[in-house]
């Protein structure tokens, strides 16, 4: 008798655990809060401001998702994760999604059992050298000392690139980006290499940015995007299409300024479908009709989010480049809202 009760309890516990796993969307709705994994700080992408409010390009994705689901862009618990803990945090269910400058690679997608739902920033590895070195191309860096963050894809890319081009280099291993800056400024290495976005942010923080040049070569592909766990496609759809809604909004000319006007109805049927004034796209996602409008209302469309956080008007000052809309020669391309 006692054994049966025990087994029964075990089964229920097991079922409850599976049920908890089944629907992240339902979990988030029930919790009334989105748990979003971010990094422990990357300029422009994620950092808490003076009031302790998280700001940044990746943070904006989390806020848009929270607004789409919960109608509250502040209903997000930001959980800082490091390069070492991020995947466990997602796999164990501690966070619902990761939005933290994570490169979409084959093994992360397939072997680690995650699902990258899109790309919010196309990055690539670049190089910065002091101007006085007189170097104008990476090809001239044979025999240089390079400050390199250990345990990153940058380290591997660098080794690959120099081997392919038959050059040698002298690595100076460092642990964090801040440490790299200090080492580079102190002259411990000739070359500073990391993702081009971080390179730009770092250069902007120097006392004399003009004394340093970023070399033109980009030696790797680093598509950064939000990711979720494998096996919960409904949830993946919500995150994927929230990101797509921001991208499509820019393409369709929906901005935070004209959003209310557009919500009244437009002549463009795709805008109407996106904003939920016609069709039932929201319902298909398990959300209500104006989910996308709410996501756009938080920080504007993709282009606006870009400009506020990392665009040319910010200290980081990144150009759109690959991250422009496909209509402007970039790679940002949302599948149609139909």
């Amino acid at each position, binding site marked *: 008798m006692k054994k049966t009760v025990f087994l029964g309890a075990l089964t229920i*516990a097991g079922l409850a*655990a599976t049920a*908890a*796993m089944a629907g992240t969307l339902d979990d988030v709705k029930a919790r009334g809060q989105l748990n979003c994994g971010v990094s*422990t*700080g*990357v*300029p*422009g992408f*994620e*950092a*808490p*401001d*003076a009031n*302790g409010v998280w*700001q940044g390009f990746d943070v904006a994705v989390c806020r848009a998702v929270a607004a789409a689901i919960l109608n509250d862009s502040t209903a997000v*618990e930001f*959980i*800082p*994760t*490091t390069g*070492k*803990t991020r995947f*466990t*945090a997602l*796999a*164990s*269910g*501690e966070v619902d999604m990761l939005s933290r400058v994570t490169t979409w690679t084959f093994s992360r997608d397939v072997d680690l059992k995650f699902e990258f739902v899109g790309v919010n920033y196309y990055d690539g590895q670049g190089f910065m050298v002091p101007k006085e070195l007189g170097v104008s191309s990476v090809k001239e860096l044979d025999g240089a000392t390079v400050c390199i963050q250990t345990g990153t894809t940058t380290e591997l890319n660098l080794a690959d690139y120099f081997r392919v081009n038959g050059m040698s280099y002298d690595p100076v291993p460092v642990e*964090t980006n*801040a440490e790299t*800056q*200090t080492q580079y400024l102190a002259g411990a290495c000739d070359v500073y290499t990391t993702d081009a976005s971080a390179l730009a*942010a*770092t250069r*902007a*923080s*120097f*006392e004399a940015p003009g004394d340093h040049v970023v070399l033109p070569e980009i030696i790797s592909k680093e598509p950064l995007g939000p990711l979720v766990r494998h096996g919960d496609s409904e949830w993946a759809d919500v995150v994927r299409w929230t990101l797509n809604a921001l991208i499509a909004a820019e393409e369709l000319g929906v901005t935070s300024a004209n959003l209310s006007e557009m919500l009244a109805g437009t002549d463009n049927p795709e805008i109407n479908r996106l904003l939920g004034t016609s069709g039932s796209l929201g319902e298909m996602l398990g959300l209500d009709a104006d989910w996308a409008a709410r996501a756009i209302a938080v920080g504007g469309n993709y282009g606006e989010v870009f400009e506020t956080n990392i665009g040319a008007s*910010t*200290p*980081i000052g990144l150009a759109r480049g690959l991250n422009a809309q496909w209509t402007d020669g970039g790679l940002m391309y949302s599948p149609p809202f139909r």
Partner: protein
Amino acid sequence: MSSTDNSYVRTEMLPEREAPTGNVGIVGWIRKNLFPDVFSSILTLIALFFIYQLLAGLVPWLTGGIWNASSLSECREIIGDGPAAACLAVIHERFWQLMYGFYPSDSYWRPNLAFILLFAAISPVLFDGVSRKMFIATATVPFIGPWLLWGGSFWAPVTAALGFVVGYFVYKLVAKSMNNLLALILGPLAAIIWWLVISGYVSSGLASVIPLGLEPVASRDFGGFMLAVTLGITGIALSFPLGIVLALGRLSDLVIIKTLCVGFIEFIRGVPLITLLFVAQVMLSYFLPKGTDFDIILRVMIMITLFASAYMAEVIRGGLAALPTGQYEAADALGLDYWQAQRLIIMPQALKISIPGIVSTFIGLFKDTTLVSIIGLSDPIGWVKLIQSNSEWTGVVWELYGFVALVFFLFCFSMSRSSMYLERKLQTGHN
């Protein structure tokens, strides 16, 4: 013969004369300690030169520091072509974040009060003049402190404390009516049953009658020095008793207890703390069922406590080993049983001997709490990184790390000073 004039023999003492001015006062001290011979004089001059260089750089840098600016570039503008100066504005703007992390600012009084209560709790140990009644504070702070920090219903700490009362009464009751060993088993068992099964109902029942509580604060929001101090103090407070038990266990004659203790101590000491923290953060997430919400700070606290208690056990074992065998024999000769002997004779002496080692372990533990930034918790070091990630403050290094170092120094230095004070106070020898 008898009337020999001895007038050259002095009949009264000469008044004492002042020592030569070159040998006393500041001049004397300098001559004796700084310039006693050529070699030392050279060393003194070299040292003075370096100290001057250091201060000449540091003092203007700090005194010329800029307190009001909203970004590093603004600081640089203000400094302009002037001498190098610290951009202390970053500390000014982010002070509360470095201290409390994301903890809600209208509740800062809670950790502050908890910290003050903690001093009340340790005051009977540190100072002589304090009334014995302060031990009431010592007994209540372990329950009130966490409640202040995390908030929630007031009845949770009350029922938690009642668990000890229940355990004690069961122990007394069984010890009186049946035997001692059974009481030693049933007492803790009753307390555990109380905590796991009954206390939940009691506390929610009481809460529905008298709702009394504080706004709950999630562990996630703990940060900065508040997190370091919380982790440090919990680790210190829990590892000390655990260390005593382990040290006694290691010296025990009972094979199983001895093996367990030796195994635990050697295992923990054989593994770096950072590995244990990764186990807490990463491995446990895989082992526990999905969706289990096992508070990360609690996990880290447990790991830090286990780690420190292994070291504590060895320090205390050192103290026990330093005690002359005569003390043990004297305790036996007085007819004291094991626990009485430990409590009245062995431990007071052994702990006194081990004070420097114990405090060293405490200080080490407190500093080790910075390792949690590697697993993504925002302790002071983690916050330095978060602040540097704001494009306004990217590139500020010395000011932030210097501030963190200064605060850590203040904590550690005062701990080490109080340990020396405690040693002098407990001094019973004749020298």
